[in-house]
């Protein structure tokens, strides 16, 4: 039997190209970039815990602002810096794969409640992107931006991959997703009071499916149960959206 090896070699070529910046650049510069990013990240995390985990002071907001300011002041090109921190970017893939573990741990809940947990997730996962898309559509923005909006309430790594497939901008998706999470977590206590939602299950599912991981950490601060339901909402909505959108638009 003859196997055509060309597509196999081409596929590996693509993957190696993705990892390329790891060995094709100045190691000193790479090390400085990685260490600086890690330092800023750890410090902003400390600050976030110290200030009672206020969602407005999310570690990612602070880190992005600090690093952005440094890059603005220092004579370093943004693209060059991004090459320097390729290692962290590449670890996002395995970290996303690890989401299967919490999902597996929540499967018994899904088996027990079935549609009653799936329905709120589908509702949240449909309304949020539709409303966001409608507002950017009515305000006459480019198609790229509209496509990016559709992934706004799923977890960032899946949002970036999906945005790439449906013609959005992955980097913009990351920012919009994080901001959505912060808005959701900030207004959640107030909305819970307003809608008189006293079921912890409902709170968790809504937070996880609309405000992804930032919402999930908010849910965990309400209770363990609420956090578990938020995890389920986060994983299921992420998977459903990431499967459906490319089928519809790619």
């Amino acid at each position, binding site marked *: 039997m003859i196997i055509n090896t060309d597509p196999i070699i081409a596929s590996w070529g693509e993957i190696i190209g993705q990892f390329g910046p790891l060995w094709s650049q100045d190691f000193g510069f790479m090390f400085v970039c990685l260490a600086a990013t890690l330092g800023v990240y750890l410090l902003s995390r400390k600050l976030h815990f110290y200030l009672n985990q206020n969602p407005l002071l999310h570690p990612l907001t602070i880190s992005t602002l600090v690093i*952005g300011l440094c890059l603005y002041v220092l004579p370093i090109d943004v693209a060059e810096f991004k090459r320097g921190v390729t290692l962290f970017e590449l670890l996002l893939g395995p970290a996303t794969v690890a989401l299967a573990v919490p999902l597996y741990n929540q499967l018994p*809940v899904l088996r027990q409640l079935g549609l009653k947990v799936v329905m709120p997730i589908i509702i949240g996962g449909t309304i949020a992107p539709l409303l966001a898309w409608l507002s950017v559509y009515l305000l006459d923005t480019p198609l790229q931006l509209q496509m990016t909006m559709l992934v706004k309430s799923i977890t960032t*790594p899946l949002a970036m991959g999906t945005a790439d497939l449906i013609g959005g901008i992955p*980097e913009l998706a990351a920012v919009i997703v994080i901001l959505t999470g912060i808005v959701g977590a900030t207004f959640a206590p107030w909305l819970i009071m307003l809608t008189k939602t006293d079921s912890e*299950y409902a709170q968790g599912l809504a937070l996880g499916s609309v405000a992804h991981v930032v919402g999930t950490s908010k849910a965990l601060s309400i209770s363990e*149960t609420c956090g578990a339901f938020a995890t389920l909402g986060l994983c299921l909505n992420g998977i459903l959206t990431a499967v459906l959108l490319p089928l519809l638009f790619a």
Partner: protein
Amino acid sequence: MMNNPVRGILGFAVIFCIYLISLFSFHYFSIPLPPALIGIFILLIVLLTLRRVPAAITQSARPLLAHMGLFLLPALISVLLYGDLFAKYHAALFIAVLLSTIVSLGITLWLSQRILLGVKGAVRVNTPMASSGQEDDN
């Protein structure tokens, strides 16, 4: 559970290999799904086959999930490259992100409450990963 570095590294190697397999199948079979999602499905199938989460996987998944924020920073920073897009459409972005999120979270909360009426306290909840693994970020 004891923290064993060898086990953690082994778990990471397994997860990384799964990711490589999913990247390869993404390119080779042109699957229209984000590569990481293919990886989630592969790991989920492995866990369902084993009927438990091996300690090595839990131990490496926990830090990866807890520090996902660090791995997102490169993408967030490169948004500086799209500064003019933000400046041009700031009103649309503001409405889409702030207002639509608040409205949809409110509607979802209200509807979920109605759907889940009466199922309180009936469920035994598993929280090993949710409590310690994902406290922060992303």
